[in-house]
């Protein structure tokens, strides 16, 4: 097998490995291929206040679990000295239980969560999934004076409805109608709060042997400080639970409502405390889609995500954001040198200069680089006159470069040009070597050649900067570092490229002209 075939096969394997990992992440885990705009995130804070009675305290709070139409991307608890455990209760709810041996006075517990709208089918309404048909409720025993009213109402509604859904809607509309008759007035007088209204609705529906249950919704709107849960009702029509607004009869949970809890149990319970109060603050944040996707992927318990760059501390992540661009720059240099035929001072010098440009901004980077090299060259020519030995001379150039950097920083700071401060980010050893090489070329091949190569190197650095600065490239290589395998493959293939360089078409032009 020839070397070229070998390289091709190796490159193919690398490309397949890299792109399949990448495709898995993009398709299966939903990591975004484009940097994209920021996504709106709802940040909800549940605040549970109560007064502890000097003794052990147990607090239970219902938590949302896979609410339909939303995805929980982050949640956390502020528990202080309380021990915390979270359990599933009654199939489709979660409950946080805080416990402490001794507590007294006013206590506040917090639960934060961040949710994003999510219209994917999964995760579906857990109530729906467990489509266990609830038993038909027993007809409740209404108090004597109400029984007649309820019966009359049910009769009336039954006549004007076709099925469970329309029955429920009709019932709700009637109960809420302004032109209430005597029966309804009587019924309505029994209900004060929304909660009572829902309870009453449940019991009336039970009279028609329709299974129903309460649900608690949280309406999301920006800037809410003292929000509370709004009870709705769900009825079972034999196959599904259908939600209803107990006031309007509306039968769909609105987009901006979060299904907090299903079932009749209270949203929170406190043992060993009183005056419990549950409040919600709701705010809207914008966040990078990347973060959301990453969290979503993590929620899916993917092994790959555990070994991704996201598992590193943010600071290290930021280092890798820059480091991962170096291979791209290196491949670009390979392209410029072996395909185009550019000459530069030092193979990878332009990449390091380009990395420095990231920090200094392009224009200032070019100005500072040219200034440093020009001043360095001047002093280097003076050193040449002194006839120093090579290594001490290199060291002297290095020291001079650092002195120049310092001087430029101080002067530009004095003059109020803060961009001049970023000069310190230039790789000084590389600068010193560039100055040394440039002065040698200057001596041996003349100023023209030296300037040509110097400007060439700078141009390559600027091009490398523009490539490495590309937002999409930055994004894609950080989210899918597996693509580096593809970059490696491309570099290997370039390593076996034996065709002409573009500059050679010029070099051998006299052959072409014949």
């Amino acid at each position: 097998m020839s070397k070229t075939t070998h390289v091709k096969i190796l490159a193919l394997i690398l490309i397949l490995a890299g792109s399949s990992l990448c495709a898995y992440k993009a398709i299966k885990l939903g990591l975004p291929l484009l940097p994209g705009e920021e996504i709106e995130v709802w940040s909800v804070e549940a605040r549970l206040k109560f007064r502890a009675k000097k003794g052990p305290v147990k607090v239970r709070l219902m938590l949302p679990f896979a609410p339909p139409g939303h995805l929980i991307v982050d949640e956390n608890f502020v528990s202080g000295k309380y021990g915390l455990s979270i359990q599933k209760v009654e199939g489709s709810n979660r409950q946080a239980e805080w416990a402490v041996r001794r507590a007294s006075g006013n206590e506040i517990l917090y639960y934060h969560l961040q949710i994003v709208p999510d219209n994917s089918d999964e995760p579906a309404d857990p109530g729906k999934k467990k489509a266990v048909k609830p038993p038909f409720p027993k007809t409740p025993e209404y108090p004597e004076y109400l029984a007649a009213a309820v019966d009359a109402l049910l009769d009336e509604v039954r006549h004007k409805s076709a099925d469970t859904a329309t029955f429920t809607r009709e019932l709700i509309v009637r109960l809420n109608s302004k032109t209430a008759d005597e029966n309804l007035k009587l019924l309505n007088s029994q209900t004060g709060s929304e909660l009572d209204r829902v309870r009453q609705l449940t019991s009336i529906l039970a009279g028609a042997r329709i299974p129903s249950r309460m649900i608690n919704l949280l309406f999301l709107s920006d800037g809410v400080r003292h929000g509370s849960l709004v009870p709705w009702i769900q009825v079972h029509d034999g196959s599904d639970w259908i939600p209803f607004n107990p006031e309007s009869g509306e039968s769909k949970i609105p987009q901006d409502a979060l299904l907090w809890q299903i079932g009749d149990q209270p949203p929170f319970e406190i043992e060993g405390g009183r005056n419990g109060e549950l409040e919600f603050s709701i705010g809207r944040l914008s966040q990078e889609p990347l973060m959301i996707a990453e969290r979503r992927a993590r929620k899916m318990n993917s092994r790959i995500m555990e070994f991704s760059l996201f598992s590193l501390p943010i600071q290290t992540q930021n280092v890798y954001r820059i480091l991962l661009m170096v291979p791209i720059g290196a491949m670009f240099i390979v392209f410029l040198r072996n395909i185009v035929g550019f000459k530069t001072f030092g193979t990878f010098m332009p990449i390091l200069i380009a990395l420095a440009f990231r920090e200094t901004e392009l224009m200032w980077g070019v100005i500072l680089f040219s200034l440093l090299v020009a001043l360095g060259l001047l002093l280097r020519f003076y050193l040449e006159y002194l006839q120093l030995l090579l290594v001490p001379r290199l060291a002297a150039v290095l020291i001079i470069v650092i002195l120049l950097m310092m001087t430029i920083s101080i002067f530009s700071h004095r003059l109020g040009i803060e961009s001049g401060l970023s000069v310190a980010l230039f790789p000084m050893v590389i600068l010193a070597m560039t100055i040394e090489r440039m002065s040698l070329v200057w001596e041996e091949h003349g100023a023209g050649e030296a300037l040509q190569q110097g400007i060439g190197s700078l141009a390559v650095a600027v091009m490398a900067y523009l490539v490495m600065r590309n937002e999409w490239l930055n994004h894609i290589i950080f989210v899918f570092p597996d693509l580096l395998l593809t970059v490696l493959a491309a570099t290997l293939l370039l390593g076996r490229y034996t065709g002409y360089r573009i500059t050679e078409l010029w070099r051998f032009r006299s052959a072409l002209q014949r």
Partner: protein
Amino acid sequence: MSILQRLRPWRRLRELGILGMNQRNGDYILRYNPRRNFPLVDDKRRTKQLAEAAGVAIPKLYGVIEIEHQIDSLESILAQHSDFVAKPSHGSGGEGILVVTGRSQKGFRKSSGLIISQAEFKHHISNILSGMYSLGGLPDAALFEKRVNFYPVFESISYQGVPDIRTIVFRGIPVMAMIRLPTRLSDGRANLHQGAIGVGINIKTGITLSGVWRDQTLDRHPDTGAPIIGLQIPYWDDILLLTARCYNLARLGYIGVDIVLDRDLGPLMLELNARPGLSIQLANDFGLLNCLRKIEKFLVIPESFHDRVEIAKSLADDCGSSQKF
């Protein structure tokens, strides 16, 4: 040239058999030049030792300076020699070579006629030692060798300095040759990228073809005005034999052999180059690939260098000067 060729110039270059840099590196140097043999040619001192042992004629080595301290003993090495050449042992591209043609009270006279002082001369040697001209900047040694009194036939076509003959030798078979003529621009040095002229040589006959200087073809020397085409290179057969022999020195498959013609001693091997340049194709007006491909197909290359020269001459008809682009 058709429009298609104009649109795809690389196709045309391929047809002409022009060897490009990537292909030279990838298909020839990497494949035929084993890395471990590179030091034999990169270090001119070792090349000289090998050549001497094999009986290949070289300019006489006067002395070697390896450490800074020895610079003071320069005088004792050079005492009997008024003219000599100082060069870095690991130099490349002819850089760092200093040709001294005589002495004066102030110091040494360079081939250009300029005088350099003792101090400047010592600084130059010190630069050589510190690795300024060596590949990778490693510490180097300075060689002092006999200055070649070049053959009078070249007097009219070189401007200061020594013309040399560069031959590409592939698997021991000389495939292409050119003579490099120093010009005023090249400051007496014989490297094309420093401004020397390259003049192709018909491998079979040793007669010069057209020349190339700074990417343009020419038929007269720019400084002396003497014609450079149609000259018979003296000792041509000896030169070919010498180049073929040089293959045995380092066992590198693809090398450039540099030879000078001394008035009294005939052809002398100056140095071997493991990465010979591509401009020789322009000087000869034809590409190397045709010939290289033919030789690549040979299963066996004869050990005798006489046979190899015969092969070279027979190939010259097929893929040599007759097949011009």
